[in-house]
């Protein structure tokens, strides 16, 4: 106890005398150790559990624990979930919904943002406020199903695409309107003097300048739509395969028998497309997200 107190006192006087070298050596040596320990305990343990359990047999995986499998059968399990979990249709189902929704939301959102940013009437201010309210307000998930039934889109991909577009248009309009306001109007005027109409001005001058902002929005919206299960359960659950919906099904079927090896094999396979995209483009993605947020 007293030894601890004296060493503590020593440390304070030491750092009082020459704080810099002491400080620097602390950073050099301890910081990487702390960082790696954090990665291993916070991320290593869960991911290790996923990988070893996905490589186990059904009996061994029944009680998922940190003991490695006696015999690895990772690829057999991959094969099994690929066929039983309908992965191929689910993958294309996810793509079929995500791609049109993202393209649509970017195009319609950018078009609206351009006009909303450039016009200053009171009506436009109200329209803008309404258009971005969806960033904060939660979608009415139950009544949207009723509405889709009434317009004949219940359980269809088009209905799901519409719902996602309605949810994420606000985000796009918010980001893009802010950005368009930083583009000088003179840029448009030049083209207009040459007789280019609004359509041409937007697609030839404004749209190409939106690249970085739209990239940020694309990343975030892809992330949300690709991983969404809540809204998909309401709108297309049981009618259409998407990756998260099928994971939910595989895991819920496990109520009778917890097939942890299959659940985790499914999780690995379904995470791969986004994970690979992320690792390949990490620098762009990270700078895109951070530049959009802090301003």
């Amino acid at each position, binding site marked *: 106890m007293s030894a601890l107190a004296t060493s503590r006192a020593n440390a304070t006087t030491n750092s009082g005398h020459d704080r810099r070298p002491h400080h620097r050596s602390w*950073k050099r040596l301890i*910081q*990487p150790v702390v*960082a790696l320990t*954090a*990665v291993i305990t916070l*991320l290593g343990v*869960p*991911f290790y*559990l996923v990988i070893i*359990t996905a490589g186990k047999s059904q009996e061994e995986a029944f009680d*998922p*624990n940190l003991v490695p499998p006696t015999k690895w059968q990772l690829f057999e399990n991959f094969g099994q979930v690929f066929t039983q979990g309908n992965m191929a249709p689910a993958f294309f189902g996810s793509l079929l919904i995500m791609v049109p929704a993202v393209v*649509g939301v970017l195009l*319609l959102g950018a*078009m*609206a943002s*351009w*006009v*909303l940013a450039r*016009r200053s009437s009171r009506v436009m201010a109200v*329209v803008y406020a309404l*258009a971005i309210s*969806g960033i*904060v*307000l*939660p*979608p*009415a*998930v*139950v*009544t*949207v*199903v*009723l*509405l889709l039934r009434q317009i004949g889109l219940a359980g269809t991909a088009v209905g799901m695409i*519409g*719902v996602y577009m*309605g949810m994420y248009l*606000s985000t796009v*309009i918010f980001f893009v309107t802010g950005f368009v306001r930083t583009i000088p109007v003179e840029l448009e*005027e030049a083209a207009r003097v040459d007789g280019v109409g609004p359509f041409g001005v*937007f697609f030839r001058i404004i749209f190409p300048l939106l690249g970085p902002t739209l990239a940020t929005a694309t990343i975030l919206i892809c*992330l949300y739509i690709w*991983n969404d*299960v*809540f809204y998909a359960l309401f709108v297309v659950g049981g009618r259409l395969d998407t990756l*998260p919906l099928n*994971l*939910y099904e595989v*895991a819920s079927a496990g109520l009778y028998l917890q097939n942890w090896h299959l659940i985790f094999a499914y*999780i690995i396979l379904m*995470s791969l497309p986004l*994970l690979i995209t992320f690792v390949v483009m990490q620098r762009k993605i*990270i700078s895109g*997200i951070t*530049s959009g*947020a*802090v*301003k």
Partner: protein
Amino acid sequence: MATTTSVLPKPRPVRLDPRGATARQKQDHPSWFIAPALLVLVVFFFVPTIFNFVYAFTDWSSFKSEINFVGFSNVQDLLSNGTLLRDLRITLIYALLVALFQNLFGLILALLLERDTRVNRIARVAFFVPVVMSALAVGYVFQALLKPEGGLNQVLSAITGTSVTTAWLGDTTWTIVVVALIHSWKWMGLSMLIYLAGLKTINEDLKEAARLDGAGWWTTFRTIVFPLLAPAVTFNVATSLLGSMNGFDIVQATTGGGPGGSTELLNIFVFRTFGQGLFAQATTMSLALFLMVAILAFPVIRFLRKREDVL
């Protein structure tokens, strides 16, 4: 105004008269550019939201074909059996816990990994992996990890030398905290990135000046670094609060709302009752969530913005 335009076709007066400017704005930035986006918003967002206010007061269900108005009876039912207030309270607690933990972890990670070294760059990418994963998948991973005979208790047993068999997801009081921690674990990488971007904007000279004045690490952080992080705090607190009030996937995958309904978020209730065919009750809860978010979000955002302005 119309005559000026027709008389002077080409060289346009550049925003001299404000009324002329509005006309110019209208002509050069036509309203029909907004129409498609507005149509999608109205059909898929506003109309369902208005429906929320209508169908919450009906007996809409899968058991009968016609729908009748029943006034406030859904609200009364949900109030009298205590579900409405319980689920509102749970959702609010969950949101507050997530906002607290996610920002705390994100900030600690950002401070830890601030310097641009190879180890830190790799660690940053690693902590972003859970953000990219599906929340449902994250929930299942932690359900397995937190079982009484699961991985976490195995590790704890090895460290303490005694056999630990805590049922992390089976406690009616503390499981909500565990689930909020899992939610924060999934999203802390995003908060970290935003705090890192915020830290980058802080002038190194300011910190150096404080250091020369004899301020220690903590004083520098408290008086200089943290106040200057205000925009990042605003963004992170707002998104984590909103995201978790709208939460579903992680709770559904770990506890399904249990034990004893102690982690039943509003969205869990909505999903469950919808599955039972009680559409009007589900709508009522969905409306409750809408109103809670609407009432809380705007004051919170205004408060955080004000904090930024003070600086």
